[in-house]
């Protein structure tokens, strides 16, 4: 199975990436290789193996519904490139 140039362009668009013609070519080859590598897993016999729905063997890791609030608002906003009125300021968003 190969990843076509069109698919690379589509994925790049979804990821908001601008790729050059050369990069599209390269990623198309790289992603095809990755996919082929991952496809090797298909050759494993899984007849007696149950379905895995998560990569981690643990399950039911929950938190109690209790409020813990000890965060400094200034600290949360300190790395914002731009802020105002206690909010992150970003370029105007139009719907």
């Amino acid at each position, binding site marked *: 199975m190969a990843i076509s140039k069109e698919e690379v362009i589509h994925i790049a668009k979804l990821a908001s990436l601008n790729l050059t013609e050369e990069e599209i070519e390269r990623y198309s080859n790289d992603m095809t290789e990755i996919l082929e590598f991952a496809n090797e897993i298909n050759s494993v016999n899984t007849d007696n193996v149950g379905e895995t729905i998560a*990569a981690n063997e*643990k399950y039911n*890791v929950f938190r109690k519904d*209790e*409020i813990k609030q000890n965060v400094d608002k200034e600290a949360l906003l300190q790395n914002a490139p731009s802020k*105002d009125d*206690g*909010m992150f300021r*970003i370029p105007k*968003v139009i719907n």
Partner: protein
Amino acid sequence: MAREDYEIVMGLEVHCELSTKTKIFCSCPTEFGGEPNTHCCPICMAMPGTLPVLNEKVVEYAVKAGLATNCQIARKSKNDRKNYFYPDLPKAYQISQFDLPLCYEGYVDVETPEGEKRIGITRIHIEEDAGKLNHDEYGRGSFVDLNRAGVPLIEVVSEPDLRTKEEVEAYLRKLKSIFEYIEVSDCKMQEGSLRADVNVSVRKKGATEFGTRTEMKNMNSFRSIVRAIEYEANRQIDVIENGGVITQETLRWDDVSGKTFSMRDKEDAQDYRYFPDPDLVEIRLSEEYIENIKKSLPELPESRKKRYLEDMGLTEKAANFVTGSKYYSNMFEEASSVCGNAKSVSNWIMSDIARILNEREEEPDELKFSGKELGELVTLIDKGTISSAIAKKVLEEMFKNPEMPSKIIEAKGWIQISDEGAIKEVVAKVLEANPQSIADYKAGKDKALGFLVGQAMKETKGKANPQMLNKLFLEELNK
């Protein structure tokens, strides 16, 4: 072809905020309001290196919602990432559920003008809310407040079983009512804790294939949902009638202009690249866990309705109306136990209380008085302390100022005159001023009595005891 030749096919995605104390994946409070970015922490702000941990109450509430809507409960479930870019979504993905939702294959029965109708529920899954964007009028940019980011939601996806706007409203009210009863959400539409996206398509009656559908977002009142459906169905029919084709797209409903607007173009058609969130582990629910939640469910509207019909003597219509909202139902039960007159209480709820709420454009959850006050009001009428005309005025007053009715009538001087001497005086006065009515009555016009009673009511500003007035007038007239 005319509009009547088309059928509207609708499905709903209802987002309902769960009333847990904390967010879905961190311990920040979910409380509404608050200064921007004060209900936040590194987790819900998506700082690198943080890890989410699922709130156990979110699972419990979602399972409750599923059981109350006749759903199957998944024994194995998981969280998935839904990827998209929007500035109110700090991680650039929303943690949601894709192929293994907590609840699936349920239904609710709703009342329609044609009788009861079953609406299928495809699934209920848990997910996190996004933040809020604020825009200012000076064009300085947009401002991100992440207080809502990470607030737990359930999304209830219906089957495309809805055909009319009345059915949509009935279905939504039913969900709202159920979730209020089981206390998993306060369902306040005005605060955005219940929101609906509607998928709409049209097809010629008798057609078996569905038409292309559009999805309308951004609706948070029953009124705007109903208006949006009307507008969008008509728009689609017009397009088809003019030889056009419906494009599958997401539309934003604008309440001010009363129109829908395209949000994203087809090219970007939803490709969310869902995949299991590797930061979270599998959810496994045991039979015992599900059984315990089932046992903890409070009495649901269906069962209350049965009790109202069988034990409290309400009519089908009254029982449906009162159980339609937890707030009405609780008020009804409390007021009935106070005054012992369930029928009268249900009538007050169905007629005057519902009418005043409607005039005020409010929902039953916004009622400021309780069954205690309503019960006393009915007692005061039954004891003859006030007439029902005065009681209506007292009720209006209770909406403005939720005090005990006895206090209101005392402050306003509205106590009914039941003193025979005082009423005799009024009767004499009215008879003297209206000789023509006496003549009319004697000539067999019974209506004249009503007129005289009306005059006496006017004279006493509605405070005279009507039964006593009637009796004394008749005594005088038949002398």
